[in-house]
């Protein structure tokens, strides 16, 4: 929590988490092509840690499976995320973490759009514009200090995990 003395949202509401997805026989069978779906994308981002709380984006309801759209044929992944409070200054950082995680995990052919759930943030337009700017995202991921913060968010949460 370097650089910030006070939590902006002192008492965030904690939501129950989805269970682990059962592994299907088809997934274990390497001969079956397995198109990426919303659940798979959700599994990639649900455990990203909030930069301020020892909680996951799923526990804070920042990401939800229902707000993820995947079009495997067109190669499009769209993730909407919902900051816990409308003035959350961490919104761009959370969005960046989601974007970096997906860029690292999904096949290169996918276009990844990470946006704020409409109406959930005061600077929605500005945050969306910044997250859609691939050049700024690229420069951000070359910034050692910023990348360190993002990587911390991407480390799987400790077993205690605040749950």
């Amino acid at each position, binding site marked *: 929590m370097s650089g910030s003395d006070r939590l902006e949202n002192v008492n965030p509401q904690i939501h129950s988490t989805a269970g682990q997805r059962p592994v299907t026989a088809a997934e274990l069978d390497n001969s079956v092509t397995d198109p990426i779906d919303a659940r798979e994308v959700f599994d990639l981002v649900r455990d990203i840690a909030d930069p301020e709380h020892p909680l996951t984006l799923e526990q804070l309801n920042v990401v939800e499976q229902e707000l993820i759209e995947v079009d495997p044929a067109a190669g*499009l992944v769209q993730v909407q995320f919902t900051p816990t409070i409308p003035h959350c200054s961490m919104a761009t950082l959370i969005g960046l973490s989601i974007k970096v995680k997906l860029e690292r995990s999904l096949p290169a052919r996918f*276009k990844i759009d990470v946006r704020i759930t409409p109406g959930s943030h005061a600077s929605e337009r500005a945050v969306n514009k910044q997250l859609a700017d*691939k*050049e700024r995202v690229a*420069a951000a991921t*070359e910034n050692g200090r910023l990348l360190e913060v993002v990587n911390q968010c991407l480390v799987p949460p400790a077993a205690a995990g605040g749950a």
Partner: protein
Amino acid sequence: MIRVLDENGGLLNITNYFFFHIYIFLQIYCLATCSNHYFNTYNLFWTLIASPLFAVGSTAVTMSRKLEPVCSLSGHTDRVWQVAWDPAGRTLASCSADKTVRLWSETGAGWSCATILADGHERTVRGVAFSPSGRLLASASFDSTAAVWDREQAWECAATLEGHESEVKAVAWSRSGKYLATCSRDKSVWLWELTDDRELDFECAAVLMAHTQDVKRVSWSPVEDRLASCGYDDTVRLYRDDGDDWVTGAVLKGHSSTVWAVAWDGAGKRIASASDDGTVRIWAETQPPDQWSCVALLSGFHQRAVYDVAWCPLTGLLATACGDDAVRVFAEEPGAGDGGAPAFGLVASVPRAHGRDVNAVSWSPTERGLLASAGDDNLVKLWRVSEE
């Protein structure tokens, strides 16, 4: 700003609308799923309103030319951001997130990498440009410097230009080679004057703070010392020397998101701008000095951000690089122009020109129809546009 008139001076042209909608549905099969945010109501509104401006009838749908692949150049180990030709058309430079610049040239066996410039930058090399003489190559890097490489010293890094506070995004030489323009995330455009071309000394001739956000690209007029820049504040801005200092002239407003690139036509009369809003706009100086208007809007063709636009001085063709992986070529409609608004039609496109986003396009300055492109797939590609 945009005069919505067709050639007969009428406001609406039903035929055009009809073809236009057919075109949209053919081109954008995913429209129904609403999965592409570039087709929001705003853009749809403008495409409908402005459609009479660009002939979207038969010309746009029947591709009258072909974009044939010439070769694919691999070597970069990360995304390629830009490509630039030397004035002789014999060397092609490309720059990449792998922190290098590669120089490609044609030998008996085809195009290949002749030189790798690897020791100039500590971070992504975002832009490259050859000086008009072809002797110097400038590069722009996220390490907040620009570098100048000298052909006469076996492409040694001969000068490093420091001053920007954050990522340098583009470099451009003026037509005489006297000035080098750089632009940055720090919102400024800098003009460097080459004060000694033996020692390669540069002095800062101006720091232009007109933009309110990061500046993505700079581009000099091919006929006079006039500079255009564009950026994250959705505008294009023009600058000129007033004798004592460089001053800001026109501000071109119209795009609804980041303007990624600007390109002058061969005569220095018009400017094309490519934007994150998925459109290309054509601007002309309707009332010199510095009264510019948008005279054409190329909308409905690109499915994602347009990252680059290049205007061929030999053929007048416009090429675009797009985040939807496609390279497209547009031609100006003959006939339009005498007082009326120019119209541009799509004459060739390669939907999957690259395996990922296409970041750059550049026309050969010497060979008609030879086009270079670069993409997030780490590749540089050459294409040839067939004559009509």
